[in-house]
């Protein structure tokens, strides 16, 4: 990031609302807690402490979030689960943002027939029911390695970002500084790299923050169905899957991982909303995932 970028980031932080700063704080706490899980966790990961006497215990001082039916400490598992959930979501969104930004920048800057064809492809891809397709593919190919899971989620989530970037690139094309660069003899590759990409970064960051929240939910849902991550890894969604059939008798094994998901996703969405207000007041109408196609009809 250039010095200008750092400066912009600093100014953006100064304009964030208290709620948004709290959200950033929550994300930082969860990220740190996951990173430091080996030192923070009271028990070893996956440790079945005493399956005869200590299974399905309600919350207590020794086990703040109780234990599950295999006598594993729920608090420990949430700390380690955060590693899996957060890193899968972040990596998947990085994949989506990279593909989407490049695709959108090329389509928007190229314009004309190239743009039309590339956008029609996106329209088609947006018609595929993502969750249903992911469930079918993941379940039939199960067990899928984590890297493939990240790629599958990432490669099915870049369409909105591509649209967003394309709209920006289309507008940038006609701006004076881009026209000037073109007049000075800069090639398309250079213009996209030096002038288009830096200027679409703001909206991409906003869409990315909101997408992390969505992907955490998506991964949790897939793992809840038993087709996301697999043992010995455990994400927050997988803790659900382990515990749902006894959640009437041991609600803590369901409620606490769920609360971790909700708190994290809420934090990412709050931050995304606030960043949108700060970074680009008028450039990103509505939610990225539900944005209407800006008059491709006209």
């Amino acid at each position: 990031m250039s010095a200008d970028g750092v400066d912009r980031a600093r100014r953006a932080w100064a304009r964030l609302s208290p709620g948004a700063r709290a959200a950033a704080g929550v994300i930082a706490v969860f990220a740190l807690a996951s990173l430091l899980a080996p030192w923070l966790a009271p028990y070893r990961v996956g440790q079945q402490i005493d399956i005869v006497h200590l299974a399905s215990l309600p919350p207590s001082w020794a086990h703040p979030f109780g234990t599950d039916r295999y006598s594993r400490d729920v608090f420990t598992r949430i700390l380690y689960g955060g590693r899996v959930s957060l890193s899968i979501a972040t990596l998947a969104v990085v994949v989506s943002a990279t593909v989407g930004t490049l695709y959108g920048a090329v389509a928007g800057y190229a314009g004309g027939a190239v743009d039309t064809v590339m956008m029609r492809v996106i329209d088609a891809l947006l018609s595929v029911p993502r969750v249903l397709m992911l469930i079918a593919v993941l379940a039939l190919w199960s067990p899928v390695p984590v890297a493939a899971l990240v790629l599958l989620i990432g490669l099915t989530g870049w369409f909105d970002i591509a649209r967003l970037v394309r709209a920006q690139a289309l507008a940038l094309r006609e701006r004076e500084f881009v026209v000037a660069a073109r007049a000075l003899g800069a090639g398309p590759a250079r213009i996209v790299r030096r002038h288009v990409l830096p200027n679409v970064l703001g909206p991409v960051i906003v869409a990315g923050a909101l997408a992390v929240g969505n992907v955490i939910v998506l991964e949790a849902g897939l793992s809840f169905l038993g087709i996301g991550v697999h043992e010995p890894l455990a994400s927050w969604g997988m803790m659900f899957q382990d515990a749902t059939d006894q959640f009437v008798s041991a609600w803590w094994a369901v409620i606490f991982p769920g609360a971790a998901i909700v708190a994290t996703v809420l934090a990412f969405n709050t931050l995304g909303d606030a960043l949108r207000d700060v970074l680009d007041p008028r450039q990103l109408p509505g939610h990225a995932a539900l944005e209407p196609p800006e008059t491709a009809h006209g």
Partner: protein
Amino acid sequence: MGRRIGARIVQAVVVLWVVATLAFILIHAAPGDPFGYDAPSVTPAVRAHWRHLYGYDRPLGTQYVLWLRNLARGDLGYSVSMHEPVRDALANALPRTLYLMGVAVVASFALGIGLALFQVRRLGTRRARWAGAVALFFYSLPDFWLALVLLLAFAYWWPILPAGYPVDMVMHGYMAPWPAFVDRLRHLVLPALTLTLLTTAAVARFQRQELLDVLPLDFVRTARAKGLDERAVIRRHVLRNALIPTITLFGLALPALLGGAVFVEKIYAWQGMGWLAISAIGMRDYPLVLAAVLVGTAMVVLGNLVADLAYVAADPRLRVG
């Protein structure tokens, strides 16, 4: 207009064909087939016979051509796990999903637009901020978690509603028309409520932004200047213009709604498309899985088509160019 509709229909068919091909490859290339299940009593010779009978021993290309040809004739194949033609399985499941999603769509668009109006009318007040926070909270909830918590709350801790199935599986057939109707409604409440809460939050967030985009425009200032009171300005001028983009939201929200329905149907044993798809996947019932993906895609494509045409009908500016 006619040309436009024609072009969109051609595009929709192409999309369906591409998705069908992609799904066929991804699903058939997966390890295993419908007859690979673990059962010691089934000898390899019997399995081979079944595979031959249903065509699973042929080359993938041949299977694809046959499947596509049958599909063009409206024949979706035979579901081994349901012991009936795929079409019959779908005929039972699809109406249930449409019923559930229809209720959720109507309720959530009405509630979401209402909530957004509330926020914009009281812009900057504490109550408006609270409404925004509540919308954001529900927007952040995982669908399956909300379904489970509602199930726990209203079917177990405070058991006022049934826990699953579209109707009472034992008694429904013996009920008089009125109790049968009530039974149906009571089973609908929890699944529909789950989907509605999640979708309402998305609609409200979207609609609020659209309203805020219209608010600073010149014609709004004109309306205020000629002395209309604020309620009339918002209802007659702001809302009417801000509702147009919401038409496209309907098309774009469908995939998410369908995804939510998969989880909701699984948790509440609501035997619709999502429930059918998950059970078919578990049995490696390829024709049924493919059909479920295809019907899901067709629903989204159709929804987008309708939304697109409605958009043109609603916005006179688009009819000129």
